[in-house]
């Protein structure tokens, strides 16, 4: 069974975060995994100048591609169709799922085997397939593990990062027929390999994501280490790829720099084991490969981000996960606390477009704005700026004219009053002077219970003397 969907991740976010931070095993697991991934990434980028140039290039390619997005999508479609690949467009999750189910029904499919696809998680495809009586089986080892456990991925690159090998050993012993308990990782992987090999041969449809879609050649690029992606896209008679509309690049030569940035930023590998470039279904005379290849292009709120010049940068993302690997909040609360398909900093900036700001406003506040995410982002997305913008949008007034779905829905009267008073004070020097005079003189009256702040901290109390007072004293001493 797949997990029930969280359509309102903000609800219960604080409780989930609190539970996660109180779980020492989870904390230890994530800390260890984050340290591991950070060290590996760093070892890949020993030349700071090269890294900086490559990030400039990566960002320029992504910005350029977005600046021509509608043209590139049409070029991609034309070339894919010319190559024999079917192209479908979906505005939302339901449309995307209906397209897959339609193809599955037409092919009388009983089993869909899946390579890792975060977009299929985003639309909750497994859930929809189950509802249609079609089995969906994850074949990426991490995804296979979380599916067996009835959970969702907690990291976009390493889905089972929250699980220890003991937990996986128990899971396999309990859920895979004929397996005895073993903590040996090679044996555990072999168990998965054997189960899934059988399934690759049986499956009617293979489903995958896409890392980059190349418009000029009509090519789908997939990268992976395990080989399950190649299995899914080669063995079954039908291959369905699903991707967000932002993944397109114009030229094939745009792939190498992004590929290099992606693998090195994600897992600290110079390269993944496989780069799989698919440009057509099986041609006459060829002896393997799918007879039918489909690409589903999904919007699901991406056009909203696109419509806003600042928020458009969200779509530059190549889903490397480096921002979450370096996020002090993600490292402490883990992926599940976010309640969204995409956790961490990227989740906080992309989810509001997928689910609405009202449903996701808490995520943008789960940041210290330390800037680590922007510092490592291979395509230079200014994540903290976008977080601040989204925080403002969540509190915006009804007449702000915001076009974002759910803007102002979670507006708090108290918060907006405080900030209005704050703004007034800071833009009127006389008012500022008077207010700070009262605050410093009346500091004994400061309440000791200050809401969430004093839950784990000592109360904030204004200084006995203002900076202005201290300066005046100093100046009089010097005279």
């Amino acid at each position: 069974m797949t997990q029930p969907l969280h359509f309102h991740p903000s609800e219960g976010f604080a409780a989930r975060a609190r539970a996660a931070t109180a779980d020492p095993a989870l904390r230890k697991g994530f800390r260890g995994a984050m340290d591991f991934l950070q060290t590996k990434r760093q070892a890949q980028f020993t030349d700071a100048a090269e890294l900086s140039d490559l990030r400039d290039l990566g960002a320029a390619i992504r910005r350029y591609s977005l600046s021509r997005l509608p043209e590139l999508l049409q070029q991609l479609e034309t070339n894919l169709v010319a190559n024999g690949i079917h192209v479908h467009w979906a505005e939302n999750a339901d449309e995307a799922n209906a397209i897959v189910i339609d193809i599955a029904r037409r092919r009388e499919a009983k089993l869909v085997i899946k390579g890792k696809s975060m977009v299929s998680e985003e639309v909750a495809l497994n859930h929809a397939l189950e509802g249609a009586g079609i089995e969906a089986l994850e074949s990426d080892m991490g995804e296979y593990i979380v599916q067996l456990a009835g959970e969702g991925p907690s990291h976009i690159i390493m889905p089972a990062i929250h699980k220890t090998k003991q937990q996986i050993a128990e899971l396999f012993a309990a859920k895979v027929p004929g397996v005895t308990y073993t903590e040996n990782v090679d044996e555990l992987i072999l168990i998965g390999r054997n189960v899934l090999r059988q399934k690759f041969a049986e499956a009617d449809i293979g489903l995958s994501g896409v890392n980059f879609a190349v418009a000029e050649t009509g090519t789908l690029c997939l990268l992976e280490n395990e080989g399950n992606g190649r299995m899914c896209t080669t063995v079954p008679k039908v291959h369905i790829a699903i991707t967000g509309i932002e993944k397109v690049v114009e030229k094939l030569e745009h792939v190498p720099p992004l590929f290099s940035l992606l693998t090195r930023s994600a897992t600290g590998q110079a390269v993944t084991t496989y780069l799989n470039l698919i440009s057509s279904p099986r041609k006459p005379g060829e002896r393997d490969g799918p007879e039918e290849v489909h690409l589903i292009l999904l919007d699901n709120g991406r056009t909203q981000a696109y419509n806003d010049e600042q928020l458009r940068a969200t779509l530059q993302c190549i889903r490397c996960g480096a921002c979450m690997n370096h996020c002090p909040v993600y490292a402490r609360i883990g992926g599940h606390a976010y309640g969204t398909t995409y956790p961490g900093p990227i989740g906080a900036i992309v989810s509001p477009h997928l689910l609405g700001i009202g449903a996701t406003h808490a995520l943008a506040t789960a940041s210290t704005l330390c800037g680590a995410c922007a510092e490592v982002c291979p395509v230079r997305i200014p994540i903290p700026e976008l977080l601040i913008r989204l925080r403002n949008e969540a509190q915006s007034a009804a007449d702000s004219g915001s076009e974002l779905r759910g803007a102002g829905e979670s507006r708090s009267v108290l918060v907006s009053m405080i900030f209005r008073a704050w703004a007034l004070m800071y833009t009127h020097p006389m008012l500022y002077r008077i207010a700070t005079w009262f605050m410093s003189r009346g500091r004994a009256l400061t309440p000791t219970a200050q809401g969430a702040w004093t839950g784990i901290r000592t109360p904030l109390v204004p200084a006995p003397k203002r900076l202005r007072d201290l300066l005046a004293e100093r100046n009089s001493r010097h005279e």
Partner: protein
Amino acid sequence: MSARERILQRLASAESRSPLPLPDVAAYYAAHQRNEDAAARLVRFRTAIAAAHAEVHDTDDAGWPALLCRIAIEKRLRSLLVGGDTADAGTLANQSQLPFALRSYDSAAPGWRNELFTAIDAGLTRAKSAIAETGSLVLWPDSREPRLMSLVPPVHFVLLDTRCIHADLHGAMTAEDWSSTLPTNALLISGPSKTADIQQTLAYGAHGPRELVVLLCHPTGAQS
């Protein structure tokens, strides 16, 4: 209006969408290229792919069948899948006394899928070229050497002509004019299949080959 039209219309009507200049990818690679000769490139390729857990052997056009047989005996391989109608398959077929059964890709045979998945120990394919920077083999599977040959058998042998090693992926694409010649499926392979999905512990042989054996074919007489 269809979903397609609505999506495209929303994108086209987005505010402040001014076209940006085409990024100069070639300039980046030109600025970061190394001035290395073919020998240095070979060393770089070999170091990188060996670091990714591939086995690398030196041989030449005349010597590789004997080397392959020796390795096959060491690894106790009982069957080897070769391409249909390729020069390499012909060379092997002409050897006397192979230590393994030679199988060719016979997708029309009944039960082929099952045999491929369960009964074949190793596959042999030729690489089109290779990439020094990342230690990657370039494979363009075709009707004679289909896609699954390099994926399903637990051991994958690859023949690589050492004269075909490019500095980086961009160099390979440009020199071989990929953008106008891409086949159904083009691949980079940079080691045996692997995963670190269980507690970041690296394990080989996730879904594809557990072992990748690279046979470097040096020009005859040039091998030192």
